[in-house]
């Protein structure tokens, strides 16, 4: 450790103003603060600095993603071996999935961080940790078989047009990870929808046993074949085809606990998304016009990306509502719209992505009205007080 510190100290002058590599200062700074605690102190006035900075926040979210990631690896292998009629055990399945998922994660990070580094150099900003979580979220919401160049393209789209254009981390209107998914969803629907893409190797079809369709629960529901659904328990555990990270509600709940206990994710948003889903689910149950609507409302919580979206996507502090009342409204509408899109629009089997992106757009408006109503309420209270004084 000491020698590392010394090397960095020795290199430092080259990157300072006027040094040989002064243009790469933010790259250097990024690496230094990645390795060691930043020495930056505030010069003027009395400031209390909390140790919870962007780096800490992002690290917690990465930890909260671990259950989902690990289970995703296992399930990827499991689905693959099921499709070819083998059962090599948990470890082999996990290893298979890990090897398949690794290239996606590497491509996502290399492309995304590369663009962030370049953007930081051009602007003279510090490199920040904003992409660390997005970079891991993106592979988790993709089908495992997605071609790597498509992934790279979607990452570039999301980071440049979803984030850097608006001013970088913390300024984006939309959740960048969902933007990447939406881009691929509309650009290459053949790779993002249908039954074949969710299981590794099913597109090429080599060695697939008869009778294995690879259809996701949502795919079955969209066709009205609710009788063929896997059992509730299987969907809850997550041993079903789907995007890498979305299948297991158990793992997602584990992540949710980490996010809520550390205070990083807003429990209000998570709870209200489920609340919204519950209300819409019950409403559709009451209508019961087709088999999909008759599906018990709690099935919606374990199918598709509903839980994943509620826990990891809707709680994004940048693109979500900031006010406490706003969070309730924002989350509730996400839940409501997700189920509505899902059931009533067969063209888009997964409604969560679109619902969250739509509500991202409305989050500032919700906040605005919450703040305005608060101002009005306090004004009224103040007027009442002055009126009483006058009397």
């Amino acid at each position, binding site marked *: 450790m000491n020698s590392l510190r010394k090397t960095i100290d020795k290199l430092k002058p080259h990157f300072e103003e006027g040094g040989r590599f002064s243009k790469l200062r933010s790259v250097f700074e990024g690496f230094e603060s990645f390795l060691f605690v930043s020495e930056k102190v505030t010069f003027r006035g009395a400031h209390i600095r909390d140790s919870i900075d962007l780096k800490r926040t992002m690290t917690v979210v990465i930890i909260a993603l671990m259950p989902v990631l690990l289970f995703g690896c296992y399930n990827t292998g499991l689905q693959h071996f099921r499709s070819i009629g083998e059962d090599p055990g948990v470890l082999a399945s996990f290893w298979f999935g890990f090897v398949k998922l690794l290239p996606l994660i590497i491509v996502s990070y290399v492309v995304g961080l590369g663009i962030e580094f370049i953007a930081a150099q051009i602007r003279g900003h510090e490199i920040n940790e904003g992409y660390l979580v997005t970079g891991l979220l993106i592979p988790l919401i993709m089908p495992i078989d997605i*071609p790597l*160049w498509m992934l790279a393209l979607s990452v570039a789209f999301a980071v440049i*047009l979803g984030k850097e*254009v608006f001013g970088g981390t913390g300024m984006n209107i939309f959740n960048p990870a969902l933007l990447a998914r939406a*881009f691929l969803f*509309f*650009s*290459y629907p*053949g*790779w993002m929808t249908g039954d074949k893409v969710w299981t590794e190797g099913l597109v090429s079809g080599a060695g697939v046993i008869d009778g294995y369709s690879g259809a996701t629960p949502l795919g079955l529901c969209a066709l009205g074949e609710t009788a063929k659904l896997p059992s509730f328990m299987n969907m809850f555990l997550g041993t079903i085809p789907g995007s890498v990270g979305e299948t297991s509600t158990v793992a997602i709940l584990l992540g949710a606990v980490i996010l809520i206990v550390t205070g990083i994710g807003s429990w209000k948003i998570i709870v209200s998304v489920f609340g919204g889903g519950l209300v819409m689910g019950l409403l559709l149950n009451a209508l019961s016009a087709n088999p999909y609507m008759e599906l018990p409302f709690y099935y919606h919580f374990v199918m598709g990306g509903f839980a994943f979206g509620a826990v990891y996507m809707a709680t994004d502090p940048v693109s979500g509502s900031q006010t406490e009342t706003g969070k309730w409204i924002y989350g509730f509408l996400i839940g409501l719209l997700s189920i509505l899109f899902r059931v009533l629009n067969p063209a888009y089997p997964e409604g969560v992505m679109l619902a969250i992106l739509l509500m991202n757009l409305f989050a500032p408006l919700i906040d605005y009205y919450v703040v305005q109503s608060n101002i009005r309420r306090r004004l009224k209270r103040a007027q009442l007080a002055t009126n009483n004084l006058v009397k």
Partner: protein
Amino acid sequence: MEGKEKDPLFSGKNIKLLTDQINRNNPITVQVLGICSALAVTVKLKPALVMALSVTIVVAVSNVVIAAMRKYIPDRIRIIVQLVVIATLVIIVDQVLKAYAFDVSKQLSVFVGLIITNCIIMGRLEAFAMANKPWPSFLDGLGNGAGYGIILIIVSFFRELLGSGTLMGYPVLEKIGIYRIGYENNGMMILPPMALIVVGLIIWFQRSRNKSLIEK
């Protein structure tokens, strides 16, 4: 005639009317007018070209007509008079297209008729032709049409190439053989939102080259 200090036909001032609209005062990227048709007709290059040509003809000719009558148009009914002129020209363009380029006319469908409501044309008549002589008005119309057209052509070039893999219907990407290594057409390029994003990118590019265009 009436003017005492007559400008030569291609004086610097007149040339500027033509060129300014293509870059510094572009109707789409700077004035942000005529966006809807720019989104609707730019899926393929060919309809975009025809649309650009049609709008250029309508705006140039209507500019001349209105500029010639500008002293005789009562102020209170000038919008109606302008609309009559534009509508007449649009119907002529529409009929010509139907007669000589029926397939393109079908692709453009309602958008030829909607040239009437194109803000660029009304805007130029109100802002320029009502106060200038026919010749500068003609140049101004040509310039605006060209400025509108060049954006349409750039947008449709990228949308057709990346969305359908063709240019003017010719399968460029297939001939290059890029599909064999796993490339696929981008379906989002065909959807209208992507046209808006491409226009946005052009605006970005233009303003980063010409900082004076950036709004405060």
